[in-house]
Structure formats: structure tokens, C-alpha cells
């Protein structure tokens, strides 16, 4: 039978024989591991793109920057020799294309362990050293800002989508347009004036007139009633309550001098912790899930009980960031354990909630401890009662224990972080709003509602998760761009990160550090693009990776 079949149909066999013989290996590979071949192809094409991009940048730099500029203008008697020497130093007689390949050879040398990114001819430092000091400081600055901007942007965007076509939605949309249109350098200078100089002046005499307090209270009431929404009665109640509450809090803060010596204390941690536990449970599992609620509250109780003993741990000699990290991990572990011990049929939810609550409570304890050093910090001779810094990443000469240094870092980080958040947060808001609106119109949301699920479950479990998918494709790109630093913000706040490295080198007509800068940024960007493809394919089953 088999032979007869073969003899009956000889033509197709011979027709397919040629390509089959030509590419049997490739076919087997792509059939058995489509993802692997996909990665391989993407890596190859990305490498080519990166190569082309570095070539473009190198050529641009070669023609844009003239390293001899200062010598032409100089009046030194040995001008000719100086020019000669620099031409020899920088190899300027060689055409730029050949110099590019020399540079590339240095970079590719890393593949065999003997690579070089060149050195800055102005300062003589190795480019790798420059990058090694610039990257951490940029990541510290832009990383924090990106995380906060993403979290805040998604929250606001979701809230705005859930309240579509209300006053809140329109104001958020308008605000995001305004933030889109703000030039970052302008915002940063304004922040320096109001955020630093203004706030520091205010701290010297932290009092407000009663009228200001009332106005601020009314403003907060208006914001809250718009946020909560509902009919007129509910809005009025929300307005009254929130205005009263914020007025009282503001008055209390000012009257007690809290701003000069802030602390949360045991009571503050308890109140905020319970609020976090209840809020989180209400949002994720619903308050009727007693096990989840009680496990979160237990964690808060443990945290409050540990608040005092921990004060002794925090002053151990050699206490540093690693300790903090360790304690944070322990906190999350305790949360997981508590959730597990409460048991029940669905203990995973309790564990997750308790762990998140534990993390929040641990964060509160940490903040409380940092607040403790606020008063000695502001009164120290280095600070002189003006704690919000406008330039640099630390106060020179200040040396204190871990907590003082942490606080010092925070006071330096706060303004550039706000500047960066203001600029990037609008786009996350727009994205998450559009994405949630799109999801809310899907049929499966209607199905979920039709089968009687509470609106909370529909929103959180069915809509929110799917709305995050498109965001997952822009966030890796933003993380990659993060390493490029914020060129303008870093310059205004004199932050010595990647952005400053670029601007300084460009000003000094120093090409090699710029190439090093671009190599880092470009490589990460290209890799992030590959990651995006995979994340999308992993999250959205409708998208398939095919080689």
C-alpha cells in the first residue's frame, strides 16, 4: 500500500523534495522551538539596528563636534604644536568611518574580555568609570519617579474611566493635557521657587491664617465629592465630612508644630495601617471575606506591637540599607504566614492581602523612623532650617547615621522626583483610562455582570487586569528610557546622572562618553522592545509569537 501510494503520486514528492532537503534543520528547529528561533531572529535584527544607530550617532558626533575649536581661538604661542598633538591624540587624520570601526572593535572586544569604551579626552577618565558612577545615581532618581508616576497614573486613569463623563473625568483629562504641554525646564524652575524656597520660608514660621485653612478645607471637600460622586445628597455629605476632616487635620498639624518635628507614632501607624487593611480588603476580596480582613488586621496589630522594640534594632551599629531590605522581606514573610494560619478554603487571598498590608505597615514604621531625625536634621548647621534642597544629590560634609543620610537623600530627591512625575504621569493616566474604557465595553464584562457578579469583582478582577495589558507594553520601554536619565531635569537640579554626563560631554565636545551613553541607552531600548513582544504574547493569548 505504502509503495503503491508513493508510485501513484511521484510528482508531489519530487516537488517537495528540493526545499525539504534544503532546510530540514531549520524546519525542525522552528517547529520544535518557535520561541527560540523567534528570540534568535529578534536578537539578530536588533543587533543590526543597534549597529546602524551607533554608526549614525558616531557620524553625527564626528561632524557636529570639533575638538579643535578651543585651540583655533587660543592665543598660545605654540598653537600649531598643540593642534598637532591633539590631532594625533584623537586620531583626527583618520576618516570618521574608519574611526567608527576602531571604536566598534573596542566595544566588540568585550566579547573576548578585552574591550574598551574609550576614554574622555578632556578629563582622561575611562568611559566605563563615568558610566559606572552615572548609572546608579540616575536609576535612583528616575526609578523612584517612574514607579510613583506609573502607580499614580494608573490609579487616576482608572478612577477617571470609572467615572466617565463626570466632572472628575473632565478635570483629569484637562489636567493631563496641561501636563502634556508643560515644558519640563519651566516646571523645574517653578518647583525650585515654590517647592524649595517657598516651602523652606514657610517652615521658618509654619502658620496659616484661618481663611487659608478654611479655603483649603473647602477645596479638599470639593475634590472629594467629585471623586466619590453619586447623587446630590451623597455629594453634600461627602463634601461636608471631608472638608471638616481636612480642615481639622490641617489645623492640628499647624497648631501642634507637627511640621517641625513630625512623627506618626504608634497611634498614627495603627490608624493608617487599619485604613490600609480595610481599604485593601474592600477593594480586592470584599469586606465579607472575614478571614482576609482579620489576617490583614492581625498584621497591623503585630506591626504596632513591634513599633517600640524595633526602635532598638534601628540604632544598631552598622545598620544600613541591607537591614532595611531584610526587615522588609521578614515583614512580607510574616504577612504570608499570618494569612496562611487563618486558613480557610481560599487562603491565598488572605496571604496576599496580609503580605501587602505587612509591607505597608513596615513602610509606615520606616517613614516614622526617618521622621524622627527630621528635627535634628533641619536644625543642624549644614541645613540651617532649610531642608528642601534644590541642587545635588546630597549635602556635602553632612555625616550622620543611616537615618540622617536617608533623610538627606529624600530631601534632595523630592523636587526632581516631583518634576519628573508631573511630566510623565499624564501619559499613564491617558493610557490606563483609554484601556479600561475599551475593556469595559467588551462582551465578557457584560457576561460577568449578567451572571450577577458584584461590580467590585467585575472591575477589579475582570476589567482591571485586562486593562493593564497594553500598559505592560509601554512600561518596559520607559524603564529602558529611564537609564538615559532625564537630561533637562538632571541639569536643572545639578544631578550627576546619565543626562548630565551626556550634556557635559556634548558641551566639552567629548565624543567617547556620548557613545558610551548611547550604547547603554540604545542597547536597553532594543532589549526592552524584545521584552515587550514577549510580555504581550504571554499576557494576551490572542497574540502569538511566530518566528
Amino acid at each position, binding site marked *: 500500500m505504502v509503495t503503491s501510494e508513493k508510485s501513484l503520486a511521484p510528482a508531489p514528492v519530487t516537488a517537495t523534495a528540493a526545499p525539504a532537503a534544503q532546510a530540514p534543520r531549520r524546519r525542525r528547529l522552528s517547529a520544535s522551538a518557535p520561541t527560540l528561533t523567534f528570540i534568535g531572529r529578534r536578537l539578530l*535584527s536588533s543587533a543590526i539596528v543597534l549597529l*546602524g544607530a551607533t554608526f549614525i550617532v558616531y557620524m553625527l558626533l564626528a561632524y557636529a563636534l570639533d575638538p579643535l575649536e578651543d585651540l583655533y581661538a587660543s592665543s598660545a604661542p605654540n598653537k600649531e604644536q598643540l593642534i598637532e598633538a591633539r590631532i594625533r591624540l584623537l586620531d583626527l587624520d583618520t576618516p570618521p568611518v574608519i574611526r567608527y570601526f576602531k571604536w566598534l572593535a573596542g566595544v566588540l572586544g568585550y566579547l573576548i574580555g578585552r574591550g574598551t569604551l574609550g576614554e574622555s579626552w578632556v578629563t582622561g577618565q575611562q568611559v566605563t568609570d563615568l558610566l559606572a558612577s552615572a548609572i546608579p545615581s540616575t536609576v535612583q532618581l528616575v526609578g523612584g519617579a517612574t514607579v510613583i508616576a506609573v502607580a499614580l497614573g494608573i490609579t487616576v486613569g482608572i478612577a477617571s474611566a470609572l467615572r466617565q463623563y463626570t466632572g472628575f473625568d473632565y478635570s483629569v483629562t484637562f489636567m493631563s493635557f496641561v501636563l502634556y*504641554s508643560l*515644558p519640563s525646564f*519651566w516646571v523645574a524652575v517653578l518647583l525650585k*521657587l515654590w517647592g524649595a*524656597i517657598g516651602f523652606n520660608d514657610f517652615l521658618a514660621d509654619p502658620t496659616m491664617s484661618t481663611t487659608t485653612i478654611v479655603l483649603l478645607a473647602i477645596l479638599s471637600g470639593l475634590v472629594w465629592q467629585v471623586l466619590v460622586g453619586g447623587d446630590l445628597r451623597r455629594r453634600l455629605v461627602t463634601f461636608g465630612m471631608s472638608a471638616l476632616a481636612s480642615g481639622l487635620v490641617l489645623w492640628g498639624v499647624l497648631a501642634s508644630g507637627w511640621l517641625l518635628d513630625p512623627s506618626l507614632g504608634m497611634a498614627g501607624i495603627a490608624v493608617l495601617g487599619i485604613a490600609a487593611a480595610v481599604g485593601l480588603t474592600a477593594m480586592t476580596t470584599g469586606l465579607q471575606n472575614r478571614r482576609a480582613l482579620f489576617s490583614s488586621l492581625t498584621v497591623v496589630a503585630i506591626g504596632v506591637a513591634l513599633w517600640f522594640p524595633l526602635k532598638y534594632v534601628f540604632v544598631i551599629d552598622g545598620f544600613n540599607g541591607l537591614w532595611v531590605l531584610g526587615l522588609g522581606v521578614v515583614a512580607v514573610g510574616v504577612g504570608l504566614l499570618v494569612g496562611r494560619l487563618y486558613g480557610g478554603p481560599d487562603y491565598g487571598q488572605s496571604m496576599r492581602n496580609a503580605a501587602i498590608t505587612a509591607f505597608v505597615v513596615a513602610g509606615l514604621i520606616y517613614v516614622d523612623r526617618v521622621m524622627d531625625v527630621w528635627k535634628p536634621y533641619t536644625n543642624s548647621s549644614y541645613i540651617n532650617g532649610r531642608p528642601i534642597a534644590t541642587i545635588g544629590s546630597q549635602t556635602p560634609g553632612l555625616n550622620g547615621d543611616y537615618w540622617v543620610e536617608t533623610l538627606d537623600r529624600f530631601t534632595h530627591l523630592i523636587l526632581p522626583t516631583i518634576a519628573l512625575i508631573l511630566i510623565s504621569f499624564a501619559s499613564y493616566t491617558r493610557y490606563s483610562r483609554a484601556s479600561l474604557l475599551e475593556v469595559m465595553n467588551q462582551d465578557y464584562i457584560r457576561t460577568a455582570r449578567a451572571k450577577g457578579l458584584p461590580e467590585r469583582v467585575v472591575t477589579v478582577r475582570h476589567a482591571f487586569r485586562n486593562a493593564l495589558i497594553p500598559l505592560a507594553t509601554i512600561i518596559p520601554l520607559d524603564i529602558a528610557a529611564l537609564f538615559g536619565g532625564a537630561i*533637562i531635569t538632571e541639569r536643572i537640579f545639578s544631578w550627576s546622572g546619565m543626562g548630565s554626563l551626556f550634556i557635559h560631554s*556634548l558641551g566639552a565636545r567629548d565624543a567617547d562618553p556620548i557613545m558610551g551613553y548611547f550604547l547603554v541607552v540604545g542597547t536597553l531600548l532594543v532589549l526592552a522592545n524584545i521584552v515587550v513582544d514577549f510580555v504581550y504574547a504571554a499576557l494576551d493569548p490572542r497574540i502569538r509569537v511566530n518566528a
Partner: protein
Amino acid sequence: MTTPTPISPQQLDGQHHDAVENAIELKEVEGLSQGRIVLRRFLRHRGAMASAAVLLAVVVLASTSIGWGPIPGWWKWAPNDLSPIVNDGGAPTLSFSGGITIGEHPFGQDNIGKDVFALVMRGTQQSLLVMFVIGLLASAIGIALGAFAGFFRGRLDNFLMRFTDMVITIPVIMVGAILGAWVGGASPITLALALAAVTWTSMARLVRGEFLSLREREFVDAARVAGASNGRIMFKHILPNAVGVIIVNATLLMAAAILLETALSYLGFGITYPDVSLGNLINEYQTAFATRPWLFWWPGLFIVTIALSINFIGDGLRDAFDPRQRRIPTRRALARADRRAQRKSGVPAAATAEA
């Protein structure tokens, strides 16, 4: 067993609502061409219309007040005129107490007596010029590359898109700064040309996507059967159908362009002294912020105004071009649409009968 599923009143209401909405939409656009529909939607977009008015006002103010090139303007000072300092420290003479008084120097003066209004107008001219040139040129490059890549596909597409990827990999502000350092101090037009050479990428990708989908449509086959050349199909048949995406993206490109130009001028790699741009004014005067804040306020305000109005116009255009866009009609709009339909046909429309 076969009783029909009861429809909840809510659902019924929803369906009914949809029907009414569509009826209005149909009534309003009856007998209009696609272009008229888009124009009508755009003109109804209040935010976009207000922004267009503001932008027009800024353009007129900037181009007539201090004149443009050889054409003289009506303002008494030129950007680099030095005049005696009027107010204390050169504070603005513009005041709103007891009616508007404009005075000699409404936006104030700097420390050597230059008129800030004239400076800001000059800066606005330059920034607007750069913005329009970038917008037009970058769009043209993007459209051309995207059209060829999307229409011819295959190897050309592959080559053009890899090239686009290369340019995208380089951060715009970085390549802008390098190009700015290269042509620095040159005329704004040169700067605009340089920046347009790197900002066309998003347009190219979008246009390519549009072309890829539009080239499979029947009207393209029809054109080909009728003997149209490739160029004719691309630019007479496909391009007009992609115009919505292109216009919206070109607007957003311009908003990004003015922010890019001012940022580069601020960093010192764009338009530099003695020429004036809004960014370079802010750079020059930022140290005087505490003592002469008006030197800093006005240029920033003009940047924000221009960028914001362009963003709003872009939003309005997007809504106008988006066929899926559905406005929520108010009761008044419903009534108005009914009346209009009645006047036109003399017969009450279907929706009225239903309501």
C-alpha cells in the same frame, strides 16, 4: 420552555438609547460628504474651537506686533531696543486694577531695559516658525517613507522600517542636542530642518500601517484595473483615505516639536543668543527668577499656551475623524436635531415617533 428571555428594563433602555443616538447621528449627517461631516464634528468640539481661536490670536499677535522681517509692526519697541526703565526694577506695566492699563512695557523690562513683550513676541515667532516647519517637513518625510514601505512591502518595506527603527533607537532629545550643537547659532530654519530629520518616525510607522491595510481594499483594485499607475494609486487613492490619521498625528507632532525646540534652546543647543526663542529666554533669565519673575513667566506662559492649544486641536481632530466616536446627546441636542429634521422633511423623524 420556549418563553423568550425577559429583557430587563435597563437593557431595553440601553438599546433604545443607542437607537435614538444613532438616529440623531444619521439625521445630522444626512446627505453630507465625509469631509463635511468631519468639519462639522470638529466645529462642534468646543475645546478644539476655543484652542484654535487662542492659537490664531497668538499667531496674529506675534506676527503683526513687532513685524516680520522687513514688514514693520505696530509695537513701539523692537526686541533689542534699550529704553529707560519705567517701573521699579522693570516690573510689568500691565495692570488689571481699575480697568486694563497696558502702559509702556506691559510684560515688563529686563535689567538693561529691553522690552519683554517685544522679546517674547520675537521668541514666539521663532518658536512657531520652527514648529510649523518641523510639523510640515517631518510629516512629509514620514508620509513618503511610510507610503512607500506600506505600498510596496517586501524588501523595500523591510529596509525602510529597519532604518526607522535605527532612528527611533536614538533618543530624540539626544540627537536633537547633537544636531543643535552642529547647526547651533544657525537660523531657526536650519534648526527646524535638522530636527525634522529625526522626528518623522512615528508618522512613518502610522502611515505604513494605514497603507498596509488600505492597499487591500476594493477601490485600490478598481483603480488598478482602470489602469492607474502606482504613484497615482498611492497618492490619489490611498493617501486621501489615510488623511485622518495623518492630520491628527501631524498636530501632535507639532506640539512635541515646540517643546523639543524650546528644550534645546533652553539647554543652549538650539536657537542661541543674539537670536531669541522662548526656550532661550527662559534659560537666559532663570537666575533672575527671584527678583524679576516676569522675565520668566511670560515666555513659559506662551509655550504652554501654544502647546496646550495644539494638543486640544489634535484631540478635536481625532474625535472628528474617528467614525466610532459617539457623543452623548443632551436632551436639548435631541430636541434640536428633531426640530431640524422636521423642518427639512416636514415629516417627524422615526426617533420622534419612537420617543
